[in-house]
C-alpha cells in the first residue's frame, strides 16, 4: 500500500498548495517575492490544513466504526 500512501500525500499536498495560495497570496502579482505577511499566513495555513485533515479523518473513522458510510481514513497524511 506504499503507492496508496504516496497518492494520499501528493493529493493532499496539491490541494493544500492551491488552497493556501488562494487564502494568502495577493493576486495582483506586483512583486516576485513572498512578503512577510504572506509567508506567515502560508505557515499557519499549512498547520490549519493539517488539523482539518485530522478532524475529517476522525469523523470518517468514527462513521466507519459506527456503521455509517465511508471507509477507513488515515490519522495523519
Amino acid at each position: 500500500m506504499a503507492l496508496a500512501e504516496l497518492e494520499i500525500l501528493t493529493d493532499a499536498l496539491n490541494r493544500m498548495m492551491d488552497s493556501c495560495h488562494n487564502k494568502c497570496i495577493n493576486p495582483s502579482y506586483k512583486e516576485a517575492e513572498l512578503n512577510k505577511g504572506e509567508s506567515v499566513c502560508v505557515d499557519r495555513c499549512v498547520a490549519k490544513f493539517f488539523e482539518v485533515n485530522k478532524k475529517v479523518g476522525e469523523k470518517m473513522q468514527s462513521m466507519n466504526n459506527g456503521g455509517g458510510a465511508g471507509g477507513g481514513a488515515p490519522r495523519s497524511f
Partner: protein
Amino acid sequence: MDFSQYSPAEQAQLQRVIEKKQMTDFIKLYSGIVERCFNACCNDFTSKTLSSKEETCVTNCADKFLKHAERVGARFAEQNAEAMKDAQAGSR
C-alpha cells in the same frame, strides 16, 4: 455490471483495476472533503490552530457532506436503474 463474457484471467485483472479505482476514488473523496471544509471554514490566519468555531464548522461540514454524498448516491442509483429500463424497453 455483468462480466460473464470475460475469461477468469481477464476477470481477475479487471477486479484488480476496479479495486485500484475504488481506492483512488476514496482518496479523492477524502481529500476533496478536507479541501472543501477547509476552504469553507478557515478564513482567519492570525493563529495556527483551529478556533472552536472553525472546529465546529469543519465537523459539521464533513458530516453533512457525507450525508449529502449518500443521498446523491441513492438517487443516482434509482435514476440510473430507470434509465437502463427505458433503454431496454426502447431497444426491444
